[in-house]
């Protein structure tokens, strides 16, 4: 140690001492760091893939199903499983005006969602029908028009069917085929209509792909006895404003009319959001095992160091260094190991993360095209770059590594100077 060691060391000196101790046995330090870096690497990759899946799922829901928010007739949302037509919006134009006047609203469009039976003349199944504006304004809110994988989008007059890809496969039907749509109108009368399939859509969203067909709003209104009505008004927000504030403003704008119910996409999909959190928790259990093994590695190494440095620590204590300072020294060494390992694991993980964030991974190669993998995504899945999570994982590693050193630090500082020196 050279000169006399004061009882309490300044942080800079302590840090230098810790660094030097780590460098004394480089191989051991590097091996420990590699162990921890493994855990950090997998934590980053797992988080990146999962966050990517979640973000893309939420985007998918907004683009194909929920929009940013929807306005329903009072009571419709509670009965949404039944898609009731008798709780529908009228006075659409006036409502549209009120909604689009709200700052932050980019576009709004009426739709009709209804129960229907779809038949190819041989078999029939219950599905969801969606009547959408074909003049173009539906595409201001949703992206159905870009999800057509076969045939073409609905013609301007709205007469035709867009089939979800799963339905098309089940019926073995495609553009040019005729299908029968059987519905009950708003007044409860059965009504059937023959329509030609114009195209097939693949959105990655099972509720569309497996369970829905789309047709023009006007033909749907005529078929369902819903003249001038809609079951929902779907709203898209401008990308630059905060979702919550637009939702607040919309709520105020619609407050005077108590026959309406406004639901943001998070409210509409609260079950799905809860589900993703449960799944994340499940994965976290597996990740925790990695972390525990890594921490066992740190604890081991530091404990070894404590045993090995018995004489040295005894000397320091004999020269008047406080036990607390010795403890801090060991904790600092643990933290530095974690910090270094975090940096290593993060650096290695950034490669694949940035690569797959840009290129994406094609899940459809692994699974059947529209198989439900629990997340509504189609085609490529892009990993997410999450600077905050990366930083938290990195710093968290340092904290946990220091925590893993607690026992070693306590042991080292509890030595009695005289006994420790006896080992000399």
């Amino acid at each position: 140690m050279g000169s006399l060691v004061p009882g309490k060391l300044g942080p800079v000196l302590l840090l230098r001492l810790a660094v030097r101790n780590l460098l004394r046995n480089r191989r051991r330090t590097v091996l420990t760091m590699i162990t921890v870096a493994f855990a950090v690497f997998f934590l980053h990759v797992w988080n990146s893939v999962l966050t990517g899946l979640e973000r893309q799922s939420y985007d998918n829901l907004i683009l194909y199903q929920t929009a940013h928010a929807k306005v329903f007739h009072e009571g419709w949302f509670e009965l949404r499983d039944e898609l009731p037509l008798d709780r529908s919006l009228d006075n659409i134009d006036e409502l549209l005006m009120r909604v689009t006047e709200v700052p932050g609203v980019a576009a709004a469009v009426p739709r009709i969602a209804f129960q229907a039976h779809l038949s190819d003349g041989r078999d029939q199944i219950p599905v969801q029908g969606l009547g959408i504006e074909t003049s173009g304004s539906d595409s201001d809110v949703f992206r159905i028009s870009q999800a057509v994988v076969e045939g073409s989008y609905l013609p301007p007059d709205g007469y035709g069917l867009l089939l979800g890809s799963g339905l098309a496969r089940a019926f073995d039907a495609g553009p040019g085929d005729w299908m029968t749509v059987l519905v009950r109108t708003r007044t409860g009368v059965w009504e059937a209509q023959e329509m030609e399939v114009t195209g097939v859509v693949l959105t990655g969203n099972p509720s569309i792909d497996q369970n829905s067909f789309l047709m023009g709003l006007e033909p749907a209104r005529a078929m369902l006895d819903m003249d001038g009505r809609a079951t929902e008004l779907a709203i898209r927000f401008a990308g630059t404003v905060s979702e919550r504030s637009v939702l607040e403003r919309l709520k105020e704008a619609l407050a005077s009319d108590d026959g309406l119910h406004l639901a943001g996409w998070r409210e509409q999909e609260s079950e799905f959001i809860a589900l993703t959190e449960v799944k994340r928790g499940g994965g976290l259990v597996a990740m925790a095992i990695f972390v525990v093994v890594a921490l066992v590695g740190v604890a081991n190494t530091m404990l070894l160091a404590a045993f090995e440095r018995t004489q040295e620590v005894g000397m320091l204590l004999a020269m008047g260094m406080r036990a607390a300072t010795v403890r801090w020294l060991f904790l600092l060494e643990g933290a530095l190991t974690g910090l270094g390992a975090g940096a290593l694991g993060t650096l290695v993980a950034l490669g694949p993360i940035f690569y797959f964030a840009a290129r994406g991974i094609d899940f459809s190669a692994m699974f059947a095209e529209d198989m439900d993998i629990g997340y509504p995504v189609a085609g490529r899945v892009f990993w997410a770059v999450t600077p905050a999570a990366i930083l938290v994982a990195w710093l968290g590693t340092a904290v946990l590594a220091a925590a893993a050193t607690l026992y070693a630090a306590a042991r080292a500082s509890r030595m009695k100077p005289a006994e420790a020196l006896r080992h000399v």
Partner: protein
Amino acid sequence: MSEPLKDPVVARPPLLGLAWRNTLRNVRRTLLTGSAVVVAAAAVIFMLSYTRGIIANVEDAYALTESGHARITGEGYLDRQRFMPLYLNVPGLGELLPSLRSHPAVAEALPRIRSAVLASNDEMNIGALSMGVDFAREEGYLDPQRMLGEGQLPRPGRAEAMLGAGLAGKLGLAPGDSLTILGQTAWRSFGGLRVEVTGTARSGVAYLDASLILLPLDQAQLLADLPDAATEVLLFARDKEQRDELASLISLDRPIPERLEVRSWRQEGTLLGLMDVARAAWGFFLVILMAMAGLIIVNTMLMAVLERTRELGMLAAMGLRRGSLIRLVVTEGLIIGLLGSAIGAVLGTGVALWVGAVGIDISAAMEGTEFPMGSVIYPDWHWTQVAVAAGLGVATGALAALYPALRAVKLAPAEALRR
């Protein structure tokens, strides 16, 4: 140490004894080294039993509700099964079933009629899945008795039904109430049946609880106008080993009437394929875990070995061969791996059995999904998992000792000469 040193050219040095004594020289350090294996082995056993529990859960739920181990249906049914077409059916059950049940590999042959119906309480209609089953024979398979929440099972020959608890709740029906079931017949005309609800069902499979109506087979035959027929016959193997080949055994040994087909559960859908993907992913996970444990062992072993360089050099100078030196150190690693695995096995087995008894409730996660999976996962412990964990632990210990061993033999002679 003394015995082998007496004779400088020991042909077969007692490596095991030496290595054992070396592990005892610094018990504290041995324990530290072993702790990595302990944690990893325990984790491996728990994760293996956990995934085995999940996979068995999914496969069982799928076999019992959907596919059997083999399934006989009308030709072309599987391509259209989303529509549950009644016009593609299995007729002549009176002859077919006894013939199937007499096959030595078949534990049970279960006729079922599946159809999409509307369940109506006179106020509202809800789409539902109606399944006509042979209640007596389904015991131990679909197991209606075990699903029964309230009330009792419907009796054959009577217009009675059992409803999934979720469906009953939506319709506001309880045992004793009556229910109208509207559906199609095999001849595509409209059919209807008024039944008394005798009980509600909690199957543990989320989508079934929300939509299932269980009827006696004869009532379903009445509703579908399909006397002596079913839409499918599920076959279950007597012997677990024969599950995958049951379909081919049956096709070989029993004349399957025309216009029918037999399909193995392995040929059905992508679900079981997904399970194979899951298995591979878990395997990768375990290998990484062991690699991490290995690195920790390398670390401590390296220290133990480098500390003894002089001593190893001495042994080398006295004629112990390079190979023997390496074996000495690797044996030490083996011993540590073995001890660590043993303790880890006890630990992992304890946790797996405990959680296996309690179960992990994932019903919140399964709500609303159509994944055929029970809502409580029970880790499924099996002795082979201990074998895998121990094998991995011992191999890791030995492999991780290899690098320190190689370094030691490289340094040892020089170090010995320097003294």
